[in-house]
């Protein structure tokens, strides 16, 4: 039967292929663009990212992988000094509060234009604030950071920290807030609150977010962001997992040294390392601490960030009433050999914590003595409290690493061994990070008696640490609601946060820190751990940021 049919089939196939070929024209920009070799192309910095970005409008973004990219394209009114958490001028050159700290006058740079050529001025600033404030139902849930720092949106204006913005001059804007707080204006360093081009926001229907079918759909703007930063958006090649940013030649400040940054999504850590070894990427984030020495030996440089985080052992008296006794909580603390934990389980540069914030945050109390490792004292306190042989359901998360805990299971094992050594019966519990752990910890009431968790600061603010932990009485992971001092602590925190004078505010937070550690002990601060990033040979100009807010405009990629 078949010879004729076979011939026909093949003819059809060849014709089809030819037709296809004729409609598929090359869309390359020009010849000679195909380096083929990847990293090491002159002027291109290729960075291995652990995950894909969510979208490119930082206002709705929630994760570090997105912010790392948008940070190169956007700027805020306030910036962060590279290598520290210190607030410095960025798009605003000066800012001044009125007497009661409710109106802030920002003097703006007069030489800035957005990537689309639109001028940056006071009107643009107010447009941005109003855009962030006035969100639809979906936007109000999705815009996590605004909700987090401002508390509410236009529909609930009375409860919002932000009250309004007025352009009082071409380059002078006044932002009104409900009451003074330590977070303002420091929060304007947040990537989510960056300034974006009003024209582009308008044209791309930037606020047109919608909740649809178990997720949010984003407007066109989210794929074509326009900021003022040293890099402009190039393209997102989804099929290859590559995001390309191009140098902004009209940048108001010093021009970026690399002409291009490429972010390559490489979820697997060992693959990122192999890519660096093969020279096809120039750097990546969060190398496994175990690899640090080996990476250095191979000629790479491991850039260690100053720790801006806290790992703690959370205690939940709502789940285990025995924990309501201060002696029991102190006993648990004395039982932990944190010095050894830091040395054996955490990377170089990690430190034992004496309170719930790192020492770079204003409000840190230097006079607090760390709880000593003292198993005998722990046993004595347990006996005094009548809690010898108590059972503690103690949990850790799986399928996750965080900057403050590179290997949760190992940290947990060390802590568990210490607890068992003083006679506490540990009931082991675990769940995957996205698979119930966070739900169990932060549910009301939380499910576990004790757990490990931590926090990386968003900006230099004591309230961003201890306010997050204990400031919300009804809804916090430490069950302070069940403690007689819980309300007092929450009130004190809010009061301290509202002090306008910086020095006075710092002193108030120092006092609260001492109280937390000496009188309340709602949880046990364990350690601060430095996350790192690594760059290959020949890469210069990376300044590691405690806030993981590295800016790549100063990076150069030399030959090997």
């Amino acid at each position, binding site marked *: 039967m078949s010879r004729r049919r076979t011939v026909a089939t093949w003819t059809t196939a060849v014709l089809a292929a030819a037709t296809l*070929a004729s409609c598929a024209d090359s869309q390359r920009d020009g010849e000679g663009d195909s380096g083929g070799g990847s990293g090491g192309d002159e002027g291109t910095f290729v960075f291995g990212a652990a995950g894909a970005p969510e979208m490119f409008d930082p206002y709705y973004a929630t994760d570090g992988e997105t912010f790392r990219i948008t940070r190169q394209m956007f700027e805020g009114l306030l910036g962060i000094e590279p290598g520290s958490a210190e607030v410095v001028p960025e798009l605003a050159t000066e800012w001044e509060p009125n007497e009661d700290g409710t109106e802030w006058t920002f003097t703006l740079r007069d030489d800035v234009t957005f990537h689309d050529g639109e001028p940056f001025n006071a009107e643009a600033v107010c447009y941005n604030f109003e855009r962030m404030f006035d969100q639809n139902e979906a936007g109000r849930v999705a815009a996590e950071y605004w909700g987090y720092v401002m508390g509410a949106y236009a529909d609930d204006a009375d409860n919002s920290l932000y009250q309004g913005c007025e352009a009082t001059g071409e380059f002078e804007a006044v932002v009104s807030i409900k009451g003074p707080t330590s977070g303002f204006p420091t929060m304007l360093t947040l990537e989510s609150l960056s300034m974006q081009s009003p024209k582009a926001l308008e044209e791309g229907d930037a606020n047109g977010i919608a909740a649809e079918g178990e997720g949010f759909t984003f407007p066109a703007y989210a794929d074509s962001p326009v900021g003022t930063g040293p890099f402009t958006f190039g393209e997102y090649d989804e099929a290859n997992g590559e995001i390309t940013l191009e140098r902004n030649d009209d940048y108001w400040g010093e021009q970026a040294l690399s002409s291009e940054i490429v972010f390559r*999504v490489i979820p697997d850590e060992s693959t990122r390392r192999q890519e660096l070894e093969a020279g096809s990427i120039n750097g990546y984030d969060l190398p496994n601490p175990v690899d640090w020495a080996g990476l250095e030996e191979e000629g790479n440089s491991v850039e260690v960030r100053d720790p801006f985080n806290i790992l703690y052992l959370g205690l939940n008296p709502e789940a285990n009433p025995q924990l309501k006794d201060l002696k029991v909580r102190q006993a648990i603390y004395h039982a932990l050999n944190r010095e050894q934990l830091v040395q054996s389980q955490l990377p170089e540069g990690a430190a034992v914590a004496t309170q719930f914030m790192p020492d770079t945050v204003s409000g840190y109390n230097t006079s607090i003595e760390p709880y000593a490792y003292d198993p005998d004292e722990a046993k004595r306190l347990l006996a005094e409290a009548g809690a010898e042989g108590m059972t503690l359901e103690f949990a850790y998360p799986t399928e996750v690493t965080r900057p403050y805990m590179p290997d949760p299971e190992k940290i947990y094992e060390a802590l568990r061994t210490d607890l068992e050594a003083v006679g506490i019966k540990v009931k082991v519990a675990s769940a995957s990070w996205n*698979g119930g752990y*966070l739900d169990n910890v932060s549910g009301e009431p939380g499910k576990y008696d004790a757990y490990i968790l931590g926090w990386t600061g968003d900006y230099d603010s004591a309230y961003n640490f201890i306010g997050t932990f204990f400031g919300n009485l009804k809804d916090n992971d430490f069950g302070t609601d069940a403690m007689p001092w819980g309300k007092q602590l929450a009130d004190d925190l809010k009061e301290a946060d509202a002090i306008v004078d910086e020095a006075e505010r710092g002193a108030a937070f120092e006092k609260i820190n001492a109280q937390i550690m000496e009188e309340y002990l709602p949880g046990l601060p364990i350690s601060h751990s430095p996350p790192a990033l690594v760059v290959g040979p020949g890469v210069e100009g990376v300044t590691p940021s405690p806030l993981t807010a590295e800016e790549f405009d100063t990076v150069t990629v030399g030959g090997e």
Partner: protein
Amino acid sequence: MLRFVLRRLLQMILVVLALSMLLFGWLRSLPGGPVSAILGERQTTERREALEIALGLDQPLPVQYLKFMDRAVHGNFGTSTKVLPGEDALVVFWSRLPATVELTLLALVIAITLGIPLGYIAARRVGSLTDTTAVIFSLVGVAVPVFFTAFLLKYFFAVEWQVLPVSGRQSTGLDATQVTGMFVLDGVLTREWDASWDALKHLILPAVALATIPFSVIFRITRASVLDVLDEDYVRTAEAKGLTARVIRGRHVLRNAMLPVVTTIGLQVGGLLAGAILTETVFSYRGVGDALATSFREKDYAVLQVLILATAVIFVLVNLVVDIAYAVLDPRIRTR
């Protein structure tokens, strides 16, 4: 034949419907969910509830399922929360499919072109050095986990000798035109030969890693099957009739020995799709498998549902094709 195909397609629809229901319930009964994945440490009861309401996850399961079906009938399979936030889950699937098709096709080609001839040769020379060596290799192929094979391949070919790329689908800065999403083909279609070659180089290691298990299985089945057939009376009869060795090999031995092999290949496609999850993850190869791994880790319900259902459809379709091929190979089945 047509009725057979139609019946199978109808069965497939029922299978997919039942699977969608099971999957829907199963995913949502797992602890955690997209809300934890989105909120992370910032999670509080208040924020979690607000997000659950916005995403419709606070409603009873049957209601959620009916809404899902209602949308699905209208061609909307839900919105991705993490893999490609904001995108329709079906679009995510279609955009990832070409990569996986390219990868599995090459892996299958490698497995078949090595497995069948080697199996045949091994069977013809049972007990020889060739046979023993091949058998040992196939055992190793089945026994060693894909991620380990992948790691070794990457270490030697990409890091030590630097002859092939470590991961990804195409080199940075290549600026290749994308037409079908299958990059090797795209390079041919647009006559960007360097892009095609580059994509092929990126394909080799993952395809070899992915091919190890199907190769071993195909090899062993071919070998066993040829051994069986060689022992059949009709082969002896053919020899007695004085047919040439070539005719006996082609018309009697191979054709008959191929029946179980074809079935195996069909089943292996399912295995390839599963293997693609691991292989694509360790090679940062952005196909369906990589998306599946990400969506599971981040509890991206919509994407997870679509990918699993679509994979099931592909599996059923491939096996339908295998059954048809079977009928072509074996006239006895056609007449039934």
